[in-house]
């Protein structure tokens, strides 16, 4: 074997992002928070923003963001992360400000805050992790729970006549003038993870270029509360969840339409 060949096999191609703290994950097996965290940390590193970032954590499993991402983080009351992020960004427009929120937080108790932050064109980035349930509190029905889905508070399955329909936040927020970027991604296959990272990069760029509000919705899993094995949970995301919550970019502002 030549030296050249040896180099090829010892070259480092993948490493822990600098912005990801080196601790053991406490999340359940098959949960996607770890993947979303890694994408977030990689993107912070990509733009060299670690020391200029303030994150806002929400209530629910997502709150533990601050144990994993090596940046300053404020903790918001349930649903209020976009309002807290507004207060941070208005006070420090030179900082990169993001929120990291679950679906109960963003799409139920926090709908007012996220809609008005988007409508103001608040120059912040929202990472929205949708796993169709309240994970931390024990798998109750969320506004994103699928029709027919059984949860601890919809034991007979979600019925639209009683509980309405799963809410599509990426589409809804894309209708607002202040939204610069809105996309829905999934992280159940390596190809999807690559696409998700591209979407998060775009969302970051919108804020860096001061073009307005940006959001990336992640279709995620909660095998523990879904009562599924991790692999079956991936299949659910790739199947019924992606059918109802289509992946794609719903709004992407070009510099030209902004000016």
């Amino acid at each position, binding site marked *: 074997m030549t030296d050249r060949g040896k180099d090829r096999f010892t070259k480092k191609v993948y490493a822990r992002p600098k912005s990801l703290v080196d601790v053991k994950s406490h999340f359940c097996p098959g949960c996607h928070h770890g993947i979303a965290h890694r994408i977030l940390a990689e993107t912070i590193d990509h733009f060299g923003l670690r020391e200029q970032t*303030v994150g*806002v954590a929400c209530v629910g499993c997502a709150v533990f963001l*601050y144990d994993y991402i090596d940046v300053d983080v*404020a903790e918001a009351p349930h649903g*209020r992360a976009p*309002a807290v992020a507004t*207060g941070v960004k*208005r006070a420090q427009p030179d900082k990169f400000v993001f929120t990291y929120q679950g679906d109960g937080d963003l799409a139920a108790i926090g709908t*007012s805050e996220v809609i*008005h932050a988007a409508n103001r064109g608040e120059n912040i980035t929202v990472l929205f992790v949708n796993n169709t349930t309240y994970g931390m509190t024990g798998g109750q029905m969320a506004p994103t729970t699928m029709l027919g889905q059984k949860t601890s508070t919809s034991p007979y399955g979600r019925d639209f006549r009683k509980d309405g329909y799963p809410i599509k936040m990426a589409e809804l927020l894309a209708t607002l003038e202040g939204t610069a970027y809105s996309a829905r991604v999934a992280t159940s296959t390596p190809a999807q993870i690559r696409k998700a990272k591209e979407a998060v990069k775009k969302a970051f760029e919108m804020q860096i270029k001061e073009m307005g509000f940006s959001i990336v919705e992640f279709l995620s899993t909660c095998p523990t509360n879904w009562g599924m094995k991790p692999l079956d949970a991936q299949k659910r995301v790739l199947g019924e969840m992606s059918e109802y919550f289509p992946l794609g970019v719903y709004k992407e502002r070009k510099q030209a339409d902004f000016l």
Partner: protein
Amino acid sequence: MNVAARVEQRVFMKGNEAICVGAIAAGCRFYYGYPITPQNDIPEYMSAHLPTIGGTFLQAESEVATINFILGTSASGKRVMTSSSGPGISLMQEGLSYMAGSELPAVVVNISRSGPGLGGIAPSQGDYFQAVKCGGHGGYRMPVLAPHSVQEMYSLAMLAFDLADKYRNPAMILGDAIVGQMKEPFTQTPYVPTVSQEKPWALTGCAGRPRQHVKSLYLKDNAIEVHNWKLHRKYLKMQEEEVRYEDYHLDGAKIAVVAFGTAARVSKTAIQWARREGIAAGMLRPITLFPFPGAQLEEIAKRVDVLLVIEMNTGQMLEDVKASTTFHDKIRFLGKPCAMPTPEEIHGELRKLAGRGR
């Protein structure tokens, strides 16, 4: 005549506007709010003046959002203020609890109105319990200042910022429609800071230091118990160091009025009338409602025949008066929920208590 006295300006303004002038003098450059009567002069003043001095005014979609804008800007290390009235202050209780738990300073002004519910826009002191006992969850306290003049709307606004920073805690100014809307002259004394405004805990990006968090969640072992005792010690320190009150003609008084804010202001006129008639009346006027001047009240209770508690509600501070003294038989109460008592009414009560004809 010293230099400071010469530059002091005498100005004629509404109480609500004087709060804004005091806040700006104290270095507040961020104000967020949502419209509600009778405090709209405050956001209107701030929306006109802050942008001209490099500050930020932002109207929120609700008081729930407002208090969280406040939380974010406070966490950024900046002096920040909001104002509202009863119904809006109710919506801020969640955020105030989080800010107390996260140890974040801010000034919150309640130009209170009549309640409960939508109530009315008449002046009232019905928010005493909510302000002083703290209406949010979990058990916390905050300094509550009760101005009774436009002069104090100005000076207590400056003090509120210092107390908030000193204790890393929200501080409240509790006014009402009268003290907010009335115009009178006041002296624009310069702001003299009494605390350091350095905030090494602020979230400014972790350049050159480890990352830090502003949070109120403590799940590990007994961390939340430790945190609660830490906060408790802070509230004890407020009680030791921050009691403020006015002694109005209490020397030799036989009847001591106990009143705050507008009720105290009106009482001063009635007390002057009574004293001209030889009635030995005076007043203990709490300026801080929390911490309450309980020890001072007990000293006065020993010396007087009557403690006349006057409030624009059905008896809220009255409970703190009762808790502060053992002389319960000396306590009388005059309540006017949702209206200002007139000097005549209070004067009549003083005459009655002094055994004079009405």
